């Protein structure tokens, strides 16, 4: 069993971070340059961490599999970034952002981490504005805000429909500054294929250069993973095609615990699937829900009619009906599940019946088309490009899609995993969003971890490591890790099978979406575990990678990633099966409110809402690898202790 | 590095040189046109204008050398930039190229080089007045008297004589057409290179370039066209002087 110590500082919640920073050890500036830190990934978390560590004087080596650090998938976030600035004077505060995030996460996040996140959120906006991020402004020249999914205050800062790209370009510019200054050595086209653990500490990585096929060893005093989420396990998702779990998974197989793998966020407003050739689901920003109304026909018979022919009285604005206080702005998990319900009832629209309308008719009548175009023009254009439909004239068709994974490698308050020296940032860790993430909080967490948290907390580890004492790369641990990487390549290129890695990915995605998607059941999950086990075996024997391993080989890259996704999929199903409750993005059909529950009768929740079981499941599930893919993993539990907030039934009515 | 080196070594610096020398050459083209259009007046008008220019050798040679240097810089920058541009795209596209580019912009080097060749010819033709480039006729033999009795070269007769040769006029017209293309792009991109353009002035500058280049073309083309359609024919016939040949001059 792994030992999990969350390292949460003692004392009142709002003082913990300040006290912790003060009590952490410092490293003398002259010594900092003797420490080498490897950072894998250059999204918001990785780029900001690399830049800041280099500014502090550490020798930083940054690795990305992309051709440029600017391409990390943080780039795709559309909506915005939260910060408790209260520039709008609408009652926001650090405490309110903390509380909203805890509640939004359905009481499955750590209080101390979330409070720290809310505290540093204000510094992030300052930092980004100083870097020249072109945030939206009011006419007076000050920053504009908007309200965003699940929040009743306007605390979201944004840059048109591409806040993610602008923040990433800010972090990337900081990275570039330090690369130019010599503080960071940047490796592009470099995919981490294994973690090297020496004497129980993370001390290096094995990397394949995707252009040349060359495999190299890199040692360091600490390794930082900022490698993003694993939603591509579903094959169809809003993730970039290249997003993968490989770095995290190899760390898991070297002993790092994987926290809450089943917590997946399904985003309610994506463009529905149109055919089995599909490679990608496109997100329509949640901001659309500020002015769009979501509905389906009241009667099944109307579903194939043109929306214009369905009278107002025959439409069911189901979110407004079910959640009168939040209406169309209900949190993502709630809105997604509601869409699933109405479609399961046979009232879904579009060719596949898996879709609901997002209607701007009322807003266009109220504000005029010009105003709507000004707010959402680029999104409407994108929708038109993909679907060939004009959303100014006919409602958009939307359906939920996998969008974010709250789970990830387990980390303590210092963002260090249970392997000393291995730090995990951003979406790759499990720490801040509990069982559901609020809109505009992912960017906040990535930058918080990278700019402000890790640079402080990494000293708690490095101060106890001898400066310049990192191991040489000819040690047995490095040799063995490299050999395992080479063995995998040999196997997949010499297999006698015929199936491409992509075909396995599609098959895995279907299993995951059917049995471990928006609604999960005990029997379904058991079946999925069985199916995935079979798939893993079939993959091992029949996957075929064509072409040479020495050079660019995209099939080989995919093969490695799909192999890891298959194993991860099984772990996600096991986690979902173990968690016999519903919470946030994890919905077990067996655990939902029924008309007999007092909460439903009192009007706090709806029939079908998620039912938590705090008495038994108020813990983080940290799974530990048992040494072989077919051996059941070991479950470690970190209890969630709430000192400030009382766990209560989440109500958005 | 000094300023000149910095300018010459940077691609943008060379573009500034192109723009500034282009501007100067544009000024010359306009001035030269205004001078030449005097041909449509009384022959004495242009003859006295030419005499005036030649009577100030210091000014004339100063201007000539200045123009020569301007052309040299313009051409040298253009040729070196073009070579670098070619080198930047060693392999072209099979599926077509230069999507969305303005057609004028694609012929700048070609139009420029032909215009350069034309300028050389033009200088030999009317400035050096080399008989060999004009079918053996020597313009230096054409003289006229101004009202005050001064004996001057008969530039009016020279122009009529020169343009009565059909292939010469044709070459002039082709060169003017190329200048039209060259200026239509050059005049607007000059502003772009110097950074004197934004979303308000961009369209206006583009329209200005198109109109001005057309006016210049029509102005220059009008002279050979007018001669070919008969202008000055009677004047030449009435000139009593016998037509000398190269042999008689020797």
């Amino acid at each position, binding site marked *: 069993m792994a030992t999990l110590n969350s390292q949460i500082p003692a004392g009142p919640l709002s003082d913990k971070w300040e006290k912790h920073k003060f009590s952490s050890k410092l490293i003398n500036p002259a010594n900092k340059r003797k420490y080498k830190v490897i950072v894998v990934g250059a999204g918001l978390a990785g780029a900001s961490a690399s830049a800041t560590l280099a500014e502090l004087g550490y020798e930083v080596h940054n690795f990305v599999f992309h051709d440029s650090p600017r391409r990390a998938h943080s780039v795709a976030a559309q909506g915005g970034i939260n910060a408790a600035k209260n520039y709008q004077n609408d009652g926001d505060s650090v405490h309110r952002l903390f509380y909203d995030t805890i509640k939004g996460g359905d009481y499955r996040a750590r209080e101390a981490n979330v409070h720290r996140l809310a505290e540093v959120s204000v510094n992030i906006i300052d930092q980004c504005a100083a870097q*020249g991020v072109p945030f939206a402004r009011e006419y007076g020249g000050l920053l504009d805000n908007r309200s965003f999914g699940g929040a009743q205050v306007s605390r979201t800062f944004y840059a048109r429909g591409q806040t993610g790209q602008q923040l990433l370009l800010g972090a990337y*510019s900081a990275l570039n500054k330090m690369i130019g200054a010599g503080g960071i050595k940047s490796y592009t086209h470099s995919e981490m294929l294994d973690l090297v653990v020496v004497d129980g500490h993370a001390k290096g990585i094995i990397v394949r250069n995707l252009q040349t096929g060359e495999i190299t060893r890199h040692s360091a005093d600490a390794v930082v993973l900022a490698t993003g989420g694993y939603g591509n396990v579903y094959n169809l998702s809003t993730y970039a*095609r290249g997003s993968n779990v490989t770095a995290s998974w190899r760390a898991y197989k070297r002993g790092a615990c994987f926290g809450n793998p089943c917590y997946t966020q399904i985003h309610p407003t994506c463009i529905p699937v149109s055919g089995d*050739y599909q490679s990608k689901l496109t997100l329509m920003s949640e901001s659309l829900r500020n002015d769009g109304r979501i509905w389906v026909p009241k009667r099944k018979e109307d579903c194939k009619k043109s929306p214009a022919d369905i009278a107002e009285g025959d439409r069911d604005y189901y979110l407004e009906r079910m959640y009168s206080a939040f209406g169309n702005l209900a949190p993502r998990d709630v809105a997604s599940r509601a869409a699933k319900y109405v479609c399961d009832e046979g009232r879904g629209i579009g060719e596949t019946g898996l879709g609901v309308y997002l209607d701007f008719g009322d807003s266009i009548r109220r504000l005029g088309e010009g105003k709507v175009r000004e707010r959402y023009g680029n999104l409407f254009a994108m929708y038109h490009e993909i679907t060939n439909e004009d959303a100014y004239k006919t409602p958009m068709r939307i359906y939920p899609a996998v969008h974010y994974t709250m789970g990830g490698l387990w980390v303590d308050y210092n963002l260090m995993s249970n392997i000393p020296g291995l730090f995990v940032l951003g979406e790759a860790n499990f720490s801040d969003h509990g069982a559901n993430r609020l809109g505009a909080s992912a960017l906040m967490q990535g930058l918080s971890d990278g700019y402000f948290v890790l640079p402080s907390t990494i000293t708690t580890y490095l101060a106890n490591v001898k400066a310049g004492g990192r191991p040489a790369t000819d040690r047995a641990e490095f040799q063995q890790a490299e050999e395992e990487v080479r063995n995998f390549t040999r196997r997949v290129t010499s297999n006698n099978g015929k199936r491409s890695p992509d075909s396995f990915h599609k098959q895995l995605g279907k299993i995951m979406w059917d049995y471990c998607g928006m609604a999960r059941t005990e029997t379904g999950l058991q079946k999925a575990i069985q199916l995935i086990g079979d798939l893993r075996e079939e993959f091992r024997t029949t996957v075929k990678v064509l072409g040479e391993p020495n050079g660019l080989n995209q099939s080989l890259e995919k093969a490695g990633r799909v192999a890891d996704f298959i194993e991860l999929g099984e772990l996600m199903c096991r986690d979902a099966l173990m968690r016999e409750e519903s919470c946030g993005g994890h919905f077990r059909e067996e655990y939902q409110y029924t008309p007999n529950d007092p909460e439903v009768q009192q009007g706090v929740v709806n029939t079908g809402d998620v039912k938590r079981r705090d008495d038994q499941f108020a813990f983080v599930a940290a799974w530990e690898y048992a040494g072989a893919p077919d051996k059941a993993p070991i479950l470690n539990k970190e209890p969630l202790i709430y000192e400030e907030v009382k766990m209560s039934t989440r109500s958005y009515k | 590095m000094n300023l000149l080196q910095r300018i010459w070594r940077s691609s943008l610096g060379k573009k500034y040189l192109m723009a500034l020398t282009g501007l100067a050459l544009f000024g010359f083209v306009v001035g030269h046109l205004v001078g030449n259009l005097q041909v449509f007046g009384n022959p004495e008008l242009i003859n006295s204008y030419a005499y005036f220019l030649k009577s100030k050798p210091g000014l004339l040679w100063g201007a000539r050398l200045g123009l020569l240097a301007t052309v040299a810089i313009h051409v040298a920058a253009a040729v070196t930039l073009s070579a670098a541009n070619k080198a930047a795209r060693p392999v072209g596209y*099979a*599926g077509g190229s230069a999507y*969305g580019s303005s057609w004028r912009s694609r012929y700048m080097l070609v139009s420029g080089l032909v215009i350069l060749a034309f300028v050389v010819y033009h200088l030999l033709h009317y400035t050096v007045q080399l008989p060999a480039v004009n079918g053996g006729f020597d313009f230096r033999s054409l003289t006229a008297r101004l009202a005050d009795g001064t004996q001057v070269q008969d530039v009016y007769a020279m122009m009529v004589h020169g343009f009565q040769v059909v292939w010469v006029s044709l070459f002039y017209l082709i060169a003017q057409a190329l200048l039209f293309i060259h200026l239509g792009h050059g005049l607007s991109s000059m502003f772009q290179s110097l950074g004197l353009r934004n979303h308000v002035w961009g369209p206006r500058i583009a329209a200005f370039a198109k109109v001005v280049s057309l006016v210049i073309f029509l102005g220059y083309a009008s002279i050979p066209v007018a001669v070919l359609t008969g202008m000055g024919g009677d004047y030449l016939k009435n000139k009593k002087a016998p037509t000398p040949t190269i042999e008689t001059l020797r």
Partner: protein
Amino acid sequence: MKVSLKVWRQKNANAAGEFKTYASPELNPNMSFLEMLDVVNEELSSQGEEPIAFDHDCREGICGTCSLVIDGKPHGPHKGVATCQTYMRSFSNGDQIVIEPWRAKAFPIVKDLVCDRKAFDRIQQAGGFISVRTGSAPDANSIPVSKENADLAMDAAQCIGCGACVAACKNASAMLFVSAKVSHLGLMPQGQPERYKRVKAMVDQMDTEGFGACTVTGSCEAVCPKEISLDFIARMNRDYAVSLIQGDPKQVAGGGAG
């Protein structure tokens, strides 16, 4: 629908490449162009032929990874979108589609349709930033930015760094890219202290990388998936002129305190 593809295949950076023609299987007009390539690749794999290598990632037009010159036009027939947002309904049954990589000396080909765009990173490493240390920033609202400038900066900042401008330009010039980066930061008050130093450093690096010069043909603007305007090139030209005249800064000797 079905189409035939004339595709550039090149084994590696040093190998000679050639066009190969493939017939597509049955396609759906609602497929994206890259999904069409996925389907063709799956078919090639099943026949034992190595799939066509092409760059792609987010498939929603923001990461700038996808490239492809399609029938002579970078990012395909539509204006204002990247290849990943191009759909097969833009083509007709029976069309032959020519697919080529970005062609530029500064973007060497790695394999098939994949080229190396690290030159863009190096340009930005030369000066594409505002030097602000983490933690040293003043309150975000202490520096007002006029809405007009913020909007204009945002227009420039939309650049996704795909390199289509270079691919389209007959001179393989990177001016639109560099000018977008220079203008974004140069328009913000935060970017003023390093404004002229930045433009000098970035343009000089651009020249070093072997991109061509701008001859104002307008191709770059026409193919840019974010429709970035040529006006930014004029803006950069203006700033660079100032930096040339200013020359290098005076050397200052360091000194210890106390």
